[in-house]
């Protein structure tokens, strides 16, 4: 069994929930009157972990799309959301945006921008899949995480929304560790 067969959308949703739960708890702890919204080391550490994970996720998701722009453009065409002019451009640019945003998150270089792009991409994917599902278009997700043959379902939408939640946690984090940005500021 390959990783792609194992990573079905419901399992990814469960992983997303398991990732967000500790963060929600740490966030709740930080809002208690004693701390008054101050960052705790645990929260900083966990948000750094989420940042690295989001970065790895983006790089992993882009690996099949980079260099396969023709197939990816056909996949985007199946979504029936973009004009023929925009389809190849999107197929060309999106994988590299994913890749460089992922690198930016992993190395913590311009990581706020990387996190914003991560959130934008996840939001966009969730919207596109939800829109196509609601109008009855069957599509292969083409997300690069699950089995390429797997049809996009509402689980895919939930998965992207949970990843979006993780991305927002990274975006709004006040402090981070293991970051090039920090090193450059010194």
């Amino acid at each position, binding site marked *: 069994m390959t990783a792609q067969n194992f990573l079905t959308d419901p399992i990814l949703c469960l992983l997303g929930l398991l990732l967000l739960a500790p963060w929600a708890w740490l966030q709740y702890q930080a809002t208690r*009157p004693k701390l008054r919204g101050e960052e705790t080391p645990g929260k900083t550490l966990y948000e750094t972990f989420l940042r690295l994970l989001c970065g790895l996720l983006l790089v992993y998701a882009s690996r099949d799309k980079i260099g396969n722009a023709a197939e990816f453009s056909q996949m985007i*065409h199946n979504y029936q959301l973009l004009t023929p002019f925009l389809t190849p451009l999107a197929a*060309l640019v999106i994988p590299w945006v994913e890749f460089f945003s992922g690198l930016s998150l992993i190395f913590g270089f311009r990581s*706020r*921008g990387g996190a914003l*792009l991560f959130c934008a991409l996840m939001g966009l994917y969730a919207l596109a899949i939800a829109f196509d599902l609601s109008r009855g278009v069957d599509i292969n997700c083409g997300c690069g995480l699950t089995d390429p043959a797997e049809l996009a379902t509402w689980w895919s939408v939930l998965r992207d929304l949970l990843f979006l939640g993780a991305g927002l946690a990274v975006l709004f984090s006040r402090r981070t560790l293991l970051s090039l940005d920090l090193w450059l500021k010194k």
Partner: protein
Amino acid sequence: MRPKRSPVPSKPLQLPGEIFPWREALRQAWGLFLFASIFAVIFNAFYVDGIELKFKPAKPYHLMDHPIVPTPIPGLTGARTPAVPKRPTPIPSASDGVIRVGLSGAKNRFDKKNCVFLDARKPEEYREGHIAGALNFYGNELDRFAPQVIPQLTDKGQEIIVYCHGGDCDLSLLVAKSLIESGYTRVEIFAGGWPEWKKAGYPVDPGDNP
């Protein structure tokens, strides 16, 4: 009794821009996006498999434009068997007008041995494994594969099931549409495709031959 006040002084009211540095985030995101876009265009220009920036949806191949003399498939039960009145419930297609069959439908036809299975995946994937008896008809190179496959589809009423990677796979859709436009009347797509068939443990064959 009144609760003791916390010794930490309360923070002054923060404006939205101070709570989160939006400008910084937007500037960084734009920079990354721009860099990735320029990099993508340059990479595409020098990459061997780079694409044209003008999208051309794959056109169905009109088999009738390339007349091929039909010959019967050796080993197949010959012409269409009329005694198949009951069809398994088809899964309605989204918008393309081609009927989808599920796993049970495909297995049903397979067991009756009166249906031709066409594998629309790449030849390398076909070689790794395919539905037992399926013919390879790669959807992106119809003109190359048609001379080998079409002569074996003698009867235009022959039941044909096309499959590829499952889902709404374009390759099987391309093959199905081309066959329908060429006059074949009973062409359907096996929606689950190869992954579903293999997962179910139904008969498969490796190698180049059907």
